[in-house]
């Protein structure tokens, strides 16, 4: 197999780094005493990396944090720096940003639904296995994803890590003809998106509810994507500038990621369920109808049904992209000027998997004094762990392999951004008792640890 070398090699993978995400469960009898989701968190590195760099650089640099949601990082970064510099971007440029973001939502949601989440409900071991038996279905998912990809390419300049985004707007605005060509593919994608909702709505869902508050952007009249203020289901409302006052991040021993909770409150969930539960009334009529036909009420707390919410959000993103294209008039200059000034700015947008907060302190000479990035996964971590604890506790009668499979499925409900460099999730289950004939007995070896 090797060309230049006679050695026999075992190439386990090509350079994505394993071991940066792990789940640890400790059960005692019929109780789960501890559920820990260890997540490696790249933004911490980028926060340090950005210090001393020019205020114009974060949109490009932070886009590299995540290959799945670079637009989210770019948009939150732009918004925060523009806020610090006293600039507001609106009109056609703001619409173009929302269009680009729709592309990312479509791409990310289609990937998650078709290759990751749906196979769990249909009994396939993976999306690959599903592709061997339901090629037509997977091809539909890839076509849908490609429509999002096309938006990223036309508006963002390339399909990953868009290069056309800058402070104040874009380096170049597409003309109407370019977007009209996009609309052709999006009209086909809308049929695929609606078919996706009908398809996933027919899956069987366990009765389960995530016991956590929910937080998302909120803007009356508009489903939240790239602008708005923050709101929780428990009634808290605050602007991006109030983030530090209302969201507390804490270091926990088992993770490099900081855990977030609401000040004076508890854990919370951000992402599709939160957006939908706070703003389903602002979906487009077509997306609202799709949600209703799929059996969704005005809110959704069941993380397993997040696949339906993602599918509905995909319908919305395609529909919204078509609306934005229809109304599009190229902006005069494609960007407004953003001059540096000393100050602090805040930016919040809705990445496909949840709220993404950026904060920058900029010096008068335009250099960055400090950067803070709070990704959705670290906000969700405490809620995911609590949910896993409850979910696993009801299934401790399963053997380790089966319990592992169920827990992995529960994690997939949230599609955590473990790291773009991560391939494997290692699961360790430690039991201090085992079950036999319906009764619990101590293990011969007190702590039996296994890794997959």
């Amino acid at each position, binding site marked *: 197999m090797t060309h*230049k070398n006679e050695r*026999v*090699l075992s190439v386990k*993978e*090509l350079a994505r780094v394993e071991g940066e995400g792990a789940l640890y469960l400790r059960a005692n009898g019929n109780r789960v005493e501890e559920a820990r989701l260890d997540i490696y968190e790249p933004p911490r590195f980028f926060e340090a990396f950005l210090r001393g760099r020019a205020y114009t650089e974060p949109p490009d640099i932070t886009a590299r944090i995540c290959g*799945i949601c670079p637009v989210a990082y770019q948009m939150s970064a732009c918004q925060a720096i523009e806020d610090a510099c006293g600039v507001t971007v609106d009109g056609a440029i703001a619409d173009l940003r929302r269009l680009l973001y729709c592309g990312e939502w479509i791409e990310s949601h289609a990937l998650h639904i078709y290759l990751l989440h749906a196979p769990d409900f249909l009994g396939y071991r993976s999306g690959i296995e599903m592709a*061997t038996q339901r090629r037509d279905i*997977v091809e539909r998912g890839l076509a849908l994803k490609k429509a999002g990809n096309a938006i990223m390419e036309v508006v963002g300049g390339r399909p990953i890590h868009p290069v056309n985004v800058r402070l104040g707007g874009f380096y170049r605005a597409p003309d109407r003809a370019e977007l009209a060509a996009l609309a052709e593919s999006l009209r086909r994608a809308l049929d695929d998106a609606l078919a996706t909702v009908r398809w996933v709505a027919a899956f069987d869902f366990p009765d389960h509810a995530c016991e956590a508050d929910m937080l998302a952007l909120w803007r009356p009249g508009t489903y939240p994507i790239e602008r708005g203020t923050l709101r929780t289901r428990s009634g808290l409302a605050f602007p991006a500038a109030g983030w530090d006052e209302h969201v507390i991040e804490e270091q926990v021993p088992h993770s490099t990621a900081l855990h977030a909770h609401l000040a004076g409150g508890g854990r919370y969930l951000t992402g599709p369920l939160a957006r939908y539960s706070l703003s389903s009334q602002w979906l487009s009529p077509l997306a609202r109808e799709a949600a209703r036909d799929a059996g969704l009420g005005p809110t959704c707390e069941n993380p397993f049904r997040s696949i339906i919410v993602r599918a509905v959000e995909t319908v919305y993103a395609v529909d919204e992209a078509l609306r934005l294209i229809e109304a599009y008039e190229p902006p005069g200059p494609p960007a407004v000027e953003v001059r540096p000034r000393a100050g602090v700015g805040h930016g919040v947008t809705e990445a496909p998997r949840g709220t993404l907060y950026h904060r920058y302190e900029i010096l008068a000479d335009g250099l960055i004094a400090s950067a803070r990035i709070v990704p959705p996964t670290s906000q969700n971590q405490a809620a995911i762990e609590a949910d896993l604890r409850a979910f696993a506790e009801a299934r401790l009668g399963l053997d380790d392999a089966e319990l592992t499979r169920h827990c992995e499925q529960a994690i997939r409900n949230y*599609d955590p951004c473990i790291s773009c460099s991560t391939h494997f999730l290692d699961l360790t289950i430690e039991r201090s008792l085992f079950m036999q004939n319906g009764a619990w007995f101590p293990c011969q070896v007190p702590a039996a640890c296994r890794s997959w």
Partner: protein
Amino acid sequence: MSGPGGVPVVVIGVGNEFRRDDGAGPAVVQGLRDLVPPGVGLVITDGEPTRLLEAWTGAALAVVVDAVRVSGSEPPRPGTTYRFVVDRPGTGSGPAASSHGFGFDDAIALALALDRMPGRLIVHAIEAADLSQGTGLTAHVAAAVDTVAAAILDDIGSFAARQGA
């Protein structure tokens, strides 16, 4: 994408330039920008399988270049280069826990399932020393970048010659 002699050829650099030696693939592709024959597609991507599929669908020849970690009994040899002609997935990955967790084997398996393999798929790999956070390649890996770029040009030239023969 129409390479030498009208044959669709694409070179795909996989990696993350903010994970030190994982930036080897993109570095090779950057180095090839002024060297490949007209029409050869050059793509830099993060390795997400459907993006790889999109990049190589319809290609008669696809060359993927990536950093690699080598497991086995021999000591690590950073900067060592390997070349594989790939026609099936390895035994690597199981079901991913996150959409951030798909890998190269998934791309091959998916391409086979969907009949989207390129006509010929060659993988060049550079053994990495450091995949931690940061920018810049380590010395041995940086030194291997030009070697691999030259090998890829050989691949393209040989392939075009065979097509023309």
